[in-house]
């Protein structure tokens, strides 16, 4: 029996990929990320047949499309619909990675800081690049809001730079911490239940308490899985504001 709650996060190499002379190990994390990506594509390929009267699965897809499209329009504005495919992709990738991680024996790819930081840095770099392409070097005015007395800029510019730099980190840390903490908690409760049963006697009866706890945490984890995907997507939209609204 695996009794180490952190063992579930171990990266194991499955085989080596040789891409353009680089040795890239294909790990269990890569495998489950690939499974998440394929199941997103599979979900939409199988369920969106374009029937006039949608079935259950098709309306699930259509509702999520509308939900995310409205989110982008509301938080950033209709001009940001150019970025809708990105927001949609990142939402569904995180959602599926989280949900697949909930099933037994699966590896939760989003419980690794490396994965979430990669997603977050990509998002922020996209905001920076799109902002500079769209506004030119005027984009850097987001660090210096207009209409302040000159001495204030000495204080405001470092503060704005720090709060901008902390964005990718908050994005990454939040997702990673939620997924890791949830899975550790789940494992601890389960181990405790197994431990009590192993003790036998009256303690075995007391195992009902951690089992109930595990059930509660599983429900909470499903909520968190969806919620964190949503939070990541809506914050992407919020940060996309900086591409379009430089004078805020």
């Amino acid at each position: 029996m695996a009794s180490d709650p952190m063992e579930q996060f171990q990266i194991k190499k499955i085989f080596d990929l040789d891409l353009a002379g680089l040795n890239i190990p294909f790990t269990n994390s890569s495998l489950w990320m690939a499974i998440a990506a394929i199941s997103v594509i599979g979900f939409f390929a199988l369920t969106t047949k374009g029937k006039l009267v949608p079935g259950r699965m098709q309306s699930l897809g259509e509702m999520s499309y509308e939900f995310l499209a409205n989110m982008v329009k509301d938080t950033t504005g209709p001009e940001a619909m150019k970025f809708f495919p990105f927001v949609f992709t990142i939402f569904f990738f995180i959602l599926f990675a989280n949900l697949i991680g909930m099933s037994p024996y699966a590896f939760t790819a989003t419980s690794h800081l490396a994965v979430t930081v990669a997603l977050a840095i990509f998002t922020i770099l996209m905001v920076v690049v799109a902002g500079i392409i769209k506004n030119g070097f005027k984009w850097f005015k987001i660090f210096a809001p207009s209409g302040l007395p000159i001495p204030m800029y000495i204080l405001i510019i470092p503060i704005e730079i720090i709060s901008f730099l902390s964005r990718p980190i908050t994005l990454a840390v939040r997702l990673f911490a939620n997924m890791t903490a949830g899975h550790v908690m789940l494992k601890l409760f389960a181990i405790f239940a197994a431990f009590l049963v192993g003790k036998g006697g009256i303690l075995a009866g007391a195992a009902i308490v951690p089992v109930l706890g595990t059930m509660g945490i599983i429900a909470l984890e499903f909520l968190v899985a969806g919620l964190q995907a949503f939070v990541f997507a809506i914050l992407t939209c919020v940060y996309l504001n900086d591409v379009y609204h430089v004078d805020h």
Partner: protein
Amino acid sequence: MTDRNGQFTQKSPSSDLNSLEQRVKAAKSKHEKPVNDDNSGSLLGMAWRLSTELLVSVLVGAGLGYGLDKLFGTNPWILLVGLGFGFAAGIKSVLRTAEKMDEISADIPIGQDLPQDDEDDDY
């Protein structure tokens, strides 16, 4: 088709659709949820957002200060300044986020549809 008096009435397909729409609306209104439908989940999301923003801003400020200290060999002065700036940045972004959340959740049409002021009303 015949109506109640046994007369033949012709319904255009559009009126059929209209009545269907009305019935769908009536059926939907039975299952109508309270207005704030994305509430319970996003409260937890809000809490996470605010707390991580504050914490990470301080860490980023301190980290930048530490890096600059290493660069210039001025341990620990820039670190301390960076900590202060980080804290300020954290407070600022938390306040900004909270303000935005208020705007969204309150959704009060300020300055519109308010009851008239009855200042000249003496009774």
